[in-house]
């Protein structure tokens, strides 16, 4: 692209800012670049965005975007991260997982300390296969309604939990395996989270906290260096950095190899998979991985809305008072970021500590992941969470989409969050509404 209209370059940011208050424009709120990208940066951002939206093609093909499979879940990154937002779980067993997947493993640890992949199926269930390679099977999801929880004032909160049945399995049964359901996670603000120094996370983990809240860092393998480092991305903080998170999703979800993961996602038991053609070695070249990394590093988190509304202010105060901010930290500071300078030295409000916490038996998946135990989950960032219904057209929360609204999500908290959850349940209805209004403003 040759851009000769440079005289107008500054209007980009002013236009984007002017849109922030426009209700319709909020549907694009997960797609905006961080302010301050120059022309070259914008070009890189858009190039990465194209790749993130790209539908990938089965090899052989006369197409640069070839390399899908041999085993895969969906065709594009945005399949599970629509509009850069949150995926959803199926409503029932007849509905396919359009933006959700199932992680698989067997008891024990892999050589790198991570989950031990299933010997026949690998690390996740890939429902689709290229011609000649059987897809691994289907995960049929059912919901089991649980007794409602009664809040102060008599309001009832429904609860449900998922139950998975594996059908049409192509490589033998899955008895004895561990599995964990995962909806697609939002992908904005990741560059800023990556720029939070590891030392900050270690300090947060060491800090004394109230209510029995602890918090620990995960230690995971950085495949580029071979070293074990602090984990910060993924539901269990099992990824050390954005680049590995992207490359891991490419090979795991799309079956596309990259410089970080140069081997196709075939197990020893998947003979057809192992001999299926690859489009290239690797299929996602370093330059394309760079572009997607640059894009995701520069997608801005949406700004909070209505922060000065009295109800929202009250809700923010309650959020802190009942103990939510012990984990959902309202402020972090990013450190140096030589590769992505726009993310450096910023005060951010992600409402996470990026640490692992025991959330109790109800949410436990029973599947350890590096140092993350079966009941532990990384505190998910809450920025942007209030826009999920508007942007993603659903209101499912938590790692498997079991919560059908924010209140259900709050009530599912347990373990280290038990005290905060108890205080929420005991809040007067008006106070609960204020707290929820605050969450919806994020």
């Amino acid at each position, binding site marked *: *692209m*040759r*851009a*000769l*209209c*440079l005289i*107008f*370059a500054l*209007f*980009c940011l002013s*236009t984007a800012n002017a*849109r922030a208050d*426009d*209700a*319709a*424009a*909020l*549907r*694009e709120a997960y797609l905006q670049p961080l302010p301050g990208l120059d022309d070259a940066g*914008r070009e890189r951002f*858009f190039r990465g*965005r*194209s790749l993130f*939206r790209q*539908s990938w*093609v089965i090899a052989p*093909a*006369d*197409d640069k975007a070839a390399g*899908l499979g041999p085993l895969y879940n*969906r*065709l594009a990154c*945005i*399949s599970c991260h*629509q*509009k850069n937002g949150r995926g959803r779980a199926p409503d029932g*067993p*007849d*509905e*396919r997982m*359009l933006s959700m997947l199932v992680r698989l493993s067997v008891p024990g640890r892999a050589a790198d300390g991570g989950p031990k992949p299933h010997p026949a199926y690998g690390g996740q269930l890939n*429902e*689709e*296969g*290229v*011609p*000649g*390679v*059987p*897809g691994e*099977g*289907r995960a*049929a999801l059912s919901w089991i309604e649980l007794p409602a929880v009664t809040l102060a004032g008599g309001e009832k909160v429904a609860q449900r939990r998922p139950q998975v*049945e594996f*059908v*049409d*399995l*192509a490589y*033998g*049964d899955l008895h004895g395996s561990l599995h964990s359901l995962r909806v697609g996670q939002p992908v904005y603000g990741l560059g800023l989270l990556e720029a939070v120094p590891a030392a900050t996370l270690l300090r947060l983990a060491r800090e004394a906290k109230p209510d029995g809240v602890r918090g620990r860092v995960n230690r995971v393998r950085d495949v580029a260096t071979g070293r074990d480092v602090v984990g910060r991305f993924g539901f269990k903080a099992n990824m050390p950095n954005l680049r590995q998170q992207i490359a891991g999703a490419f090979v795991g979800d799309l079956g596309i190899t990259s410089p970080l993961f140069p081997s196709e996602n075939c197990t020893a038991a998947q003979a057809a998979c192992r001999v299926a053609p690859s489009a290239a070695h690797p299929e996602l070249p370093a330059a394309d991985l760079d572009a997607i990394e640059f894009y995701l590093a520069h997608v801005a988190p949406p700004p909070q809305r209505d922060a000065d509304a009295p109800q929202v202010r009250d809700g923010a105060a309650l959020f802190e008072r009942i103990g939510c901010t012990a984990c959902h930290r309202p402020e972090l500071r990013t450190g140096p970021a030589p590769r992505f300078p726009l993310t450096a030295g910023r005060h951010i409000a992600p409402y996470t500590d990026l640490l692992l916490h025991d959330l109790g038996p109800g949410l436990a998946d029973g599947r350890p992941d590096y140092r993350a135990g079966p009941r532990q989950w990384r505190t998910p960032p809450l920025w942007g969470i209030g826009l999920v219904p508007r942007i993603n057209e659903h209101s499912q929360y938590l790692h498997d989409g079991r919560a059908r609204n924010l209140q259900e999500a709050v009530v599912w908290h347990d373990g280290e969050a038990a005290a905060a959850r108890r205080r929420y349940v005991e809040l007067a209805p008006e106070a609960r509404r204020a707290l929820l209004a605050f969450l919806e403003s994020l």
Partner: protein
Amino acid sequence: MNDNPDFSALRRRLLLALGALPAAGRAAPAAPSRQPVVVLTSYNDEVFSRFEAAFEKAWPQYRLQLVWRMPHDALPTLRQPRQSGIDVYWSASPRNFASLAAEGAWQALAIDRDGLPGHVGRARLADAEGYYAATEMAGYGFIVNPAELARLGLAVPQDWSELAAPAWSGRIALPDPGRVGFAPVMVDIVLQAYGWERGWAVWSAIAGNAGSVMEAGSTFVTDEVASGRCPLGLSIDFFSAAAIANGAPLRFAYPAHSGINPAHIAICRDAPNPDGARAFADFVLSAAGQRLITHRDIRKLPVRPAVYRELPADYFDPFRAAERGVFDYDGDATRDRLGLVAALFAQTLTREHGELAGLWRRVHRAEAAGRDVGAVRRQLEAPPLSAAEAADPALLAPFRDRREAATAPAANALEAQWQQASRARRGDIARRLDRMGA
């Protein structure tokens, strides 16, 4: 028909690949078995995933299986033995549907067309033989940034020829027809509307006014305009309409001479699951399916007029616009030349674009100063080939099956010649302007 052992093996491999048949040693499925319907398409996930969810809910006995190919890559896929096991082809590539129809690739669509017109303007919405049908439409025009236009004192143009004026110099985002899939039809709309000679003259001037030549998708044109870097872009409507529906402060304007690029659906001659294929085609054309494409993240134009009555008043209705003659472009009439005109445009107007833009600026300056540079202008405006030359079947042949960014070795030598001739012509024009001191 399906007792051919080669086919049976191929079909079984495909079904296995799609997880639809039990393999040896599998656990007995607890959920009811679903028959695959294999759809070859170039729709992005935003479109297809909505159809997956809605179709499988309406037809729980079927499971859609998506094979994604760009149009240029879809042709060889459908020319493989047994058409690679594909049931349905669904894509916005009229040339592919026509080419494959001529090869006998389709079976009769045979679905209820009640409520589905055969035309919009002069654009056919189904082929005469009943093999394929349009499922949605996209129109061509101008995406504009009203705030920027106001700042510059420019009005939204009513037609393409207005963009040839010097006031638009450096202010147009132009998609490269050699690389951007929707752009060849856009070039042809102008050529058909104004005729070959005047059409190329208008395109030369518009290209000369381009501030940005976009080499990839229309979202880039929309971004370029939204950013204010160029206040107007040439585009197909749905990218822009989706952005506008989601709050972008932009407007899409259809010129007096627009055109329709329809997406079609067809059932493969060798479709392994013709009933499922027909159910899917029927669903796409149903009111429910047509409503899906009006979602604000998609914003295509339905082919079922009744659906427009349920849409907001500002949703563009091409059937009403066609009554004003906006869609008199006849895509069937000049379909065979799309590859050729795209290649000509790319080689003569967008390659080395800076030189062309510089020459046009010099001509504009000279004319503003009252200089007579008519001869130079005519040289700049002259078509790269005569209409008769461009209609030569031997010349059309190497470009007929060519799609954006695809390689076509037989055409490369011709393109090199055009590029060289264009370069020589620009050099000659520059020397003439030098001699005139312009």
